[in-house]
């Protein structure tokens, strides 16, 4: 299993409703693809959103949580046909949600540092613009991300 894989990118997902509906949809998608517990995943996402919103602006959110059953961190992406109100920092609705899933047990530093790099990269306006431009095509999204970050 790879940390970031084409099969964990879901483009143009239709969600009717708010952030909770979107999180539920994401939990279902990633759970079924990676043999995880969808309910636990949703609970984790929701708990993190309650601390503070993960919608950091520019139409992108990064819901994240620890989850049982993973051996290494996992990055997944979901893009939405209809922008979702995420109570983002810039109050703009979200079109791309990037899920960061981490194992419960402490993971190795190397894995975590990839996620850290990804997080830093999201502060690059050009990178976010490239993501937005590629958001209807899983293959292009995959290329934009892997061009910027080295996953193993």
């Amino acid at each position, binding site marked *: 299993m790879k940390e970031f894989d084409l099969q964990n990118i879901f483009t143009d997902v239709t969600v009717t409703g708010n952030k909770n509906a979107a999180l539920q949809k994401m939990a279902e998608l990633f759970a079924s693809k990676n043999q995880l517990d969808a309910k636990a995943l949703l609970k984790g996402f929701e708990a*993190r959103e309650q*601390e*503070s*919103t*993960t919608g*950091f*602006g520019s139409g992108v959110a*990064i819901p*994240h*949580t*620890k989850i049982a059953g993973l051996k290494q961190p996992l990055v997944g992406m979901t893009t939405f046909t209809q922008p979702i109100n995420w109570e983002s*920092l*810039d109050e703009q609705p979200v079109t791309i949600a990037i899920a*960061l899933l*981490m194992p419960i047990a*402490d993971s190795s*530093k190397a894995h*975590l*540092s990839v*996620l*850290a*790099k*990804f*997080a*830093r990269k*999201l*502060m*690059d306006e050009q990178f976010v613009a490239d993501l937005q431009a590629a958001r209807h095509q899983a293959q292009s999204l995959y290329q934009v991300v892997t061009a910027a970050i080295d996953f193993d």
Partner: protein
Amino acid sequence: MASFVGITKCPVGVAHTYMAAEKLQKAGEAKGYQVKVETQGAQGNENELTEADIRAADFVVLAIDVSIDGMQRFVGKKVVFATTAAAIKDSTTLIERAQNADVYTGSKKKAGEEDEGEEVEKPQRKQSPVVQQLLNGVSHMIPFVVVGGLFIALSIAIGGHPTKSGMVIPENTIWNSMNQIGTLGFTLMIPILAGYIAHAISGRAALAPAMISAMVANSPDILGTKAGTGFLGAIAVGFAAGYLVKWFNSWKIPQSLRPVMPIFVIPLLGTAVITAAFILVLGGPISWLMTALNNLLSALAKNPSTSIILGLVIGAMVAVDMGGPVNKVAFLFGVASITANHPQIMGAVACAVAVPPLSVGLATFIRRDLNTAEERQAGVAAILMGLIGITEGAIPFATANPKHVFPSIIAGSAVASAIGSFLGITDVVPHGGPIVGVLGATNHLGLFLLAILAGVAVSVLLLAFFKIRRAKREKVVA
């Protein structure tokens, strides 16, 4: 260069910690700051702030959602508190707020509660007031050292000719003017150092007594000695004037007299007391010390079998006060050896003088992250001064960090001189550093440079060792 430091930390430590750090970095650099942000995330603390970073920083930005490690590091700094979200959303505003933030005082922790260290050099989180006062003097002095040193170095390198009376720059040339300007810069360095040490202790009223007294302490004619007291004397004057004025300020003065105290009474009284003390109390001992050292060197020089010891002593003397009386004795002894047609001793001096500035400069390139921006810039200037044989380039470093710098440069200079002495290096120009070798004043350029290099290697190794050891200790405490 303006700089700030920051720490970011979010609950999970995977994403927002790093996003906030990145944003602060970018926004800060866009505003022209040098930025260093420590991340306290799930991978542990990364890019950790050193004491030097914090000391150099104009302010501190904390973008933290939970409490962080090592808050006590920021006592005495301007600190702004915010969340990671605030930093991600708008770091620019956050930085602007931090520029005028309140000074963090920390929770009062009783001193002496911690186990009393057996080590003398227990790393301290908070600098003692004495060190802060000293550093205030050093940071004001550095520009003068840099300007003075580089003007002198360039003018000698380009316009100087080696002669029996030293590196002579023909009169009425631009290089001659430049050299004189540089000399003024060096002359001012002494009162500036003393003045701003005193200023840090008791404010403006202490400036005049400290600066005037420092000039007196550096004027052999007034002191009645063959040499001034150099920068060590300036430090003594700075503290003496600072605390004397502080004591004056504690006097109970009638209201009507108060306005004239800081502009009239205190400067007059302070200058009179301190200059008198230097002339009456210190003039004699300095003369005696210089004579005694001179006799020691004469005794050593008589016996050819002690040439290595003579070299060690001369090298140590050159580095011990860099332009003060001890250094002067060694230098004048070298000069005398030229006239006596025995220029080996000047050769030993010439090897030693380059070692302190070259070493402190080169040492800033080892683990460069442990040095402040100020030190890095002063380091480059120090290297240039070292090449031209201007020992004074090392003074800011020695003043700021005497416990580490003095042993290192004294050892290195002693080694350089001893090797020079052993190899029989001669120098017929009363000046030192690689430049005299390049200009052909020594008998063997290769061996001359070898002696200098050996000394520099010793000093740099010691400096790097001390620096890294201190950083490690700080880390253990943090």
